[in-house]
Structure formats: C-alpha cells, structure tokens
C-alpha cells in the first residue's frame, strides 16, 4: 500500500513555564491510502500535538515527517501553508464552521483560496454527507451532528490525500457519534483518503482499521 504520511522518531518538546514537556516522544507511524486510523488517549497525552505535526501546523523538535515524498520538517512556512491548503484536510472539534456562511458556502470557502485543481462539487459533496437539503442553512440553524457533517464535507472538498480529524464526537450523543465516524470511515475508503482521527470516544473505534493509544507522548498499538 502507498504510504501517505510517515513519522519516524518524531519528538516535540515545548516549554511549560520553567519546565520542558515532551509532547511527542519518539513517534513512529505510517498511514496508507484509504486507511482509517484512530489515536485514543487522555487529555494532555499529546494527541493534538500529533495532529499538529502531521498536519504541518508545527515542526517537530527532531525526527522525520513526510507527506508522500514531501519533507514537512524542512518545508518553509509558506510551503507548509500550501500543503495544508492543497493536500491536507482538517475536521475540527465542534466542526468550527464560519458563523456567517451557509452550509454550501462553508464548502466554497476553501475553494476560494485553494489552487485550481480537481476539486469536488460542493453541492454533490453535501448530498454525499446527507446535507443537501440544508445547503442554505447557517451553522446556528443546524444540529451538532449536522454541523459536523458539513465540517467533514468541507475538509474533503479539495480532495486531500490526508484527512486529520480532531475529536469529531466531542459534542455529540452516542447515536450521532457513530453516524459521524461511520461517515468518516466511508469517505476514507470510498475516496482513498488516509485518515487519522484523535478521540476520547472508545465506542466509535470499531469503525477504524487500526487504533493507537497515546500516553505521555508515547504512541503504542491499542
């Protein structure tokens, strides 16, 4: 299988007052095309740091991070920005949609600053996540599960190679949580997007291909 994301011996150290904290401790991880991987762990274990490094939002203290053949460690800030724009999709906690935009415009937004390419049709994508009937609604007119569906569609509209998902079920009930994670698993497999999801929610792990556990910055298979 083709490796989309590769982390080798990645460490991330940051200052916390007078102390230094090792947020990531020699992480090794590979994500393949169409694979859906979950990372579980308690708060402060380093899950968000792992997403930040994998998503080119921060540079690790040491180690190697590659997105396909692109080295994320040596990339400039501008290059990392372009990688996030064109090759990585993010699904945030509580969707984090823009309050003033309709569901359809949420999907058009990344296209307004993305490089021209083979993007997906926003309306078709909304239909795929079951939200075409609420395309003209703003976030405050949607339920938590609906917002998250729009958030998933927004992350996929630029056809990213890598999808990073941050606690997608944090604000959802059990039923909605299953529906969202099922949707993510479906999208990952159907459109061959390597997907990494960090979550507290053990109930949704059965939809994932592999599960890792993060404790004190160390990643181990669960």
């Amino acid at each position, binding site marked *: 299988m083709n490796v989309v994301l590769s982390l080798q011996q990645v460490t991330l150290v940051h200052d916390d007052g007078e102390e230094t904290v090792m947020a990531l401790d020699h992480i090794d991880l590979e994500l393949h095309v169409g694979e859906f991987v979950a990372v579980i762990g308690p708060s402060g274990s380093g899950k968000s740091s792992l*997403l930040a490094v994998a998503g080119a939002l921060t540079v690790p203290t040491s180690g190697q991070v590659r997105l396909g053949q692109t080295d994320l460690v040596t990339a400039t800030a501008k290059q990392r920005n*372009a990688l996030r*724009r064109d090759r990585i999709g993010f699904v*945030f*906690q509580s969707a984090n949609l*823009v309050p003033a935009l309709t569901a359809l415009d949420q999907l058009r937004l990344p296209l307004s*600053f993305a490089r021209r390419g083979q993007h997906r049709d926003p309306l078709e994508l909304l239909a795929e996540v079951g939200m075409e009937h609420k395309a003209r609604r703003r976030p405050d007119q949607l339920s938590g599960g609906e917002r998250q569906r729009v958030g998933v569609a927004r992350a996929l509209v630029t056809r990213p190679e890598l999808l990073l998902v941050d606690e997608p079920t944090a604000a959802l009930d059990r039923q909605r949580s299953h529906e969202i994670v099922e949707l993510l698993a479906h999208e990952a497999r159907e459109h061959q997007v390597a997907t990494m999801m960090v979550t507290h929610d053990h109930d949704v792990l059965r939809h994932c291909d592999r599960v890792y556990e993060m404790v004190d910055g160390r990643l181990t298979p669960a």
Partner: protein
Amino acid sequence: MGAVVALITVLMVLLSGLSVGLVNDGVSGLKQLPVTSFAFQEGVQKSSAYSRSVVPTAAAKEWAMQPGVADAAPFGNTLANGRTTDGVEIDLALFGVVRGSFLDPRVATGESLFADGQVVLAKSADTQNMAVGDIVVLEPSGQALAVVGFLDGQHTFGHVDVGYVTLRSWQQAKAGLGDGEALPERVRNEATAIAVRAKSGETVNLAAGDEAANMTSMTLEESFGASPGYSAETSTLQLIQIFLYLISALVVGAFFTVLTIQRKGEIAVLRAMGASTAYLLLESLNQSVVLLVASAGVGIAAGLGLGAAISATEMPFALEAGPIIGATVLLLVLGVVGAGIAVLRITRVDPLTALGGNR
C-alpha cells in the same frame, strides 16, 4: 458599527453644510464680484483690511496700467444699520462702486444704479418684503437710499446682506453724513481698496503693482480672511472636522480590532486550512471597505435629508457636492487606514489554536 459610521457621516455632512453655509454667509458677496485681487492700504492689518483700509481712488489708474490687468476700479466696503419704509430694521454691507465700472452689478429685477442715493439689494429673508421704490434710511445719519433693483443669488458679507451703492453714496455713509451735508474733499477721493480683474488666462504681478502704487494686495480668496469673523469661524469648523475624521478613524480601528479578536478562532481555522495571510488580510479589508461604503452611503443620504430641512431655515447652511464628496473620501480613507491597522492582528493568529478545545 455600521450605525456608528453612518452617524459620523451624518455629522460630517451637517458640518460640511454648516461650514459652506457660514463661508457663503461671510463672503458670498465677495465671491460674486468679478475680481481677481484687491489692493489695500499699504501695511494694513490683513485680518481686518476691509474695515481698516483707506486708499486713494486715483490708485485705480496706477493698477489699470499694470501688465495683465483687464480692469481696476475703486471699491468701498462698510457695514451699516438702517430702517426700511415699513420701519423694519435692516443691516447692510454697503459695497460702493463706480457706476458703469466692471463692479457695477447686473440686477435681476429693477434697474442698475443710475444716481447717488440709490441702492441695489440682494434678495434674502430680510429683504424679501421690500420692493423697488422702497427707501432705506441709514442710522444714525439719516442718509436715505432708494431701492432701485434686486440681485439674484446670495450676496452677503459678514453675515449681512450686501447693498450696492454708488461710490459717492458709500463715501457719505462711511463719513456718517446725512442727506444735504457736504462731503469733505478728502473723503471724495477715498475708497476701501482697488478692485483688480486680471485679463483672461493671465496673472497680475501683485508685488510689482504694490510697489508701484504703495499698496498691499491680496487675491480675492486671501481677502476672505479680511472679512469680519471669517478666519475664526472657518478655523473652528475645520478643527471640529479634523477631530471628527480622527475620531472616525479611531472608532473604525477600534471596531475592527474587536471584530478581529472575536474572529480569532475563525481565523485560526482558516489559517489551519491553508488560507494565506495575504488572503485573510485582503478579505478583512474588503469586508471593512464594504461596511464603510455602505454605512457612509446611508449616512450621506440621512445627512442630505437633514441638511435639506436645515437649509429651509434661516441657519447659514449650504450643501455642496464637492466638500461632501471630499469629506466622504477622506472619511473612507481614514476608516480603511484604521481598519488596516486593526486587521494586521490577523498575522499574529496561530493556526495551532484551531486544534483541541481552544475555541
């Protein structure tokens, strides 16, 4: 925010109207004169030249010979109190002109001046009930002036209506002499200034003319400052306008600072999604321009409506497109500068904050 910008724009339109109205009320009589400059008494205090200056009427000949001068004629200027036939008190700025000279005004109704002891008046709220044939008696001298004609448009000086009289009648009024009293020889040769009109497309070397005639010249526009209260009024209003512009820039800047802080989470998400700093800055600036233009449009419309209502009163108020457009453009430019400084905060938003429970 839009309401604040709209209110500032209303205030700006009203101030502009008041400013133009006061200027017109102070010097519209001078603006209507076909004059490019005035030559006053040598060394006269420039801020009160119209009331202090005394020049010999013969100096007009000296000025007429200067290169580039089309016309030069004596001009008298004095404020006077009078009473109409109906016993109504009236204040006048008497402009003394030589009959048939280029200063002799063209009347809209009635006749031009054809003899001493006559006056041509501007139509205004104070003179609207007067008619040709009415008599204005100056106080306390008792000098009588027969109304022979009326002018079109606004003709005021120092906030009172202009009355054109012959130079001889003006000399009599200036000397405070009643009808039948002999005019002293000295006064017969005096005027306030020599009015000069340059030939079309040419300029007059005022310094050379002053040296030749021993006088102190001012262009027509410069001479506005020599009319009563003009500088004090305009500088006060200009100061208020400057403060209004600064306040608007600060208000707009403060608003966009708050808006940017409120949007910090949203901006972090957009940056995490790969939106460039330039894109975000441009988008925020576009937003501010749209908001400013729309709000200013509403403010101008409301200001024009209010201004039209004020114009119908006796308050010196005049709406002119030029000053309103200029002030609006300045308001928008300063607003965009204020917004631009505020949205620079975008560059400091860390996309990392989009992750976790930071929002």
